[in-house]
């Protein structure tokens, strides 16, 4: 693969996973800017070890592990304001915390990725619903009837589930064909 193709591939990896990794770091550091720096550092590590043939899971596994290590380095150097992480201090080093955080960030990432694949109208409805607005509130906001909203919701979610499942099915299939 040419260098420029590799860079392009890495760019799309970056854009797809950056937010999840940054939020992951933030749960360790409770500092948005520092979390962003650590996330970038983790991606840089990936760049230095990058093979475009890596699967999504291998890349994600690498990134979460690298990010955790970068955060631990920061915590060890006491670069983080102590008071912010006092509550988490004991738990944040545990494997359980690590795995739970991965689960959390990945769940949100998948929902986000799938929602952004929906057509505009469906995306809008899905977003408003996820944000906690009731059907009535959405109906008022979009100036349509509540029945329309209910139908739109049903369609949006059906599409969303399909997107998520398809990814899932593809991943399962890949397991059999590779």
């Amino acid at each position, binding site marked *: 693969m040419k260098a420029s193709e590799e860079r392009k591939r890495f760019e799309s990896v970056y854009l797809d996973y950056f937010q999840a990794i940054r939020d992951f770091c933030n749960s360790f550091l409770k500092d948005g*800017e520092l979390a962003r720096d650590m996330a970038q550092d983790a991606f840089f590590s990936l760049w230095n070890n990058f093979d475009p043939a890596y699967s999504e899971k291998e890349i994600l*596994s690498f990134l979460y592990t690298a990010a955790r290590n970068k955060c631990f*380095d920061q915590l060890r150097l006491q670069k983080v304001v102590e008071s912010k992480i006092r509550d988490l201090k004991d738990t944040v080093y545990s494997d359980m915390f690590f795995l739970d955080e991965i*689960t959390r960030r990945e769940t949100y990432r998948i929902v*986000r990725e799938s929602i952004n694949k929906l057509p505009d109208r469906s995306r809008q409805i899905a977003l408003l619903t996820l944000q906690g607005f009731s059907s009535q509130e959405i109906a008022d906001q979009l100036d349509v009837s509540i029945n329309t909203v209910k139908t739109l919701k*049903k369609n949006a979610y059906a599409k969303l589930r399909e997107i998520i499942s398809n990814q899932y099915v593809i991943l399962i299939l890949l397991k059999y064909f590779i």
Partner: protein
Amino acid sequence: MKQKINERLDLARRFARRLTEQDAVHDELDRQLEEDPGLKELYEDIAANLHAVNMEPTGREEWMDFERRYLFSGRRRRNLIFRYAAVACVLVALTVGLSLYFSGQEEPPVVISSGGNLPTLSVSDQVYALDSAGIKQFAQQHVIMQQTEKELTYRVDTVAPVTPEWHTIRVPRQAEFTLVLADGSRVRLNTNTTLRYPVPFTGSTRDVWVEGEAFFEVSPDQAKPFVVHFEDNHVTVLGTAFNVSCYKQHPSRTTLVRGSVSLSNSLDSVVLLPGQEGIIRASGENITVREADVNVVTAWLNDRFYFKELPLSEIMRTLGEWYDVKVRFDRESTAAMLFSIETRRYEDIDSVLRILESTKKVSFTRKGNMIEVRSNL
């Protein structure tokens, strides 16, 4: 562990599917949740916080920032002054007669660089000219420096503690230079300016010393304030972009473009708002705060002069510094005449003087390094 991570990646997808299920569907996941209360608690927490998650896709500018910071292209960087508000600028005036309590050494003699107009970098007793060839060899462990003709970038490749070294950059007349420090802060140095800084930053604050003029864009780090020192004064950066002009024997002027800074001298301390500037005339005096014209103060960043209703004496003083000439006025009233002029920073002073002459109010005669100014009125 890798196996466990993969299990969680799979689990997350099943959680995502479950979260977008509108009707209760009893499937394998539900059974799993019933059997494992810890897992159920995790799922419910994830579900409860879903509404607060940002669903916007990551913008391209985020990638471009990463690309710029980590994947050096070797090309000159764009002028990034007003790029985004996250950068804090600190201008610190370095006084030449700096107290050297950091090193306890004698201040090395002012180096007249052989290249005349070349900026120089001093580290311990080694002096490097920052020419287009770039710094070839540099011996400080874990510190990586990359230099193009007008810019020097530092990176530290480890998070382990590194013994800091003092670096001093001197920019001569008719030159300017950009520095990117190890924490990502960018400093643009104007003519006749010296900046002294530790590499890397250690301790609880990031301190630099300046004399001359510089525009700082400081990388935000709430845990480690960035402090710019000049003479007995200092500016503490609270997240900001600002210009500091502090040439020797002149009142210093600290102008805030964006964000927030606190400016202090031995007597007084003020917090500046964007668009304000703090003037320190002399040691032991209070700080004067007034409204600034940011465009006037930062014209030099675009390689321009911008004098707004200034007496000719002040205009000629600035030109004299940039072009290294002396000025003599025929009368005091000539020196007091007000001018407004905005122009490129030309290679030679004659071009600028011609622009002033076109007002028909004054004429200039050049005798070597001396400019004589006469009023036509």
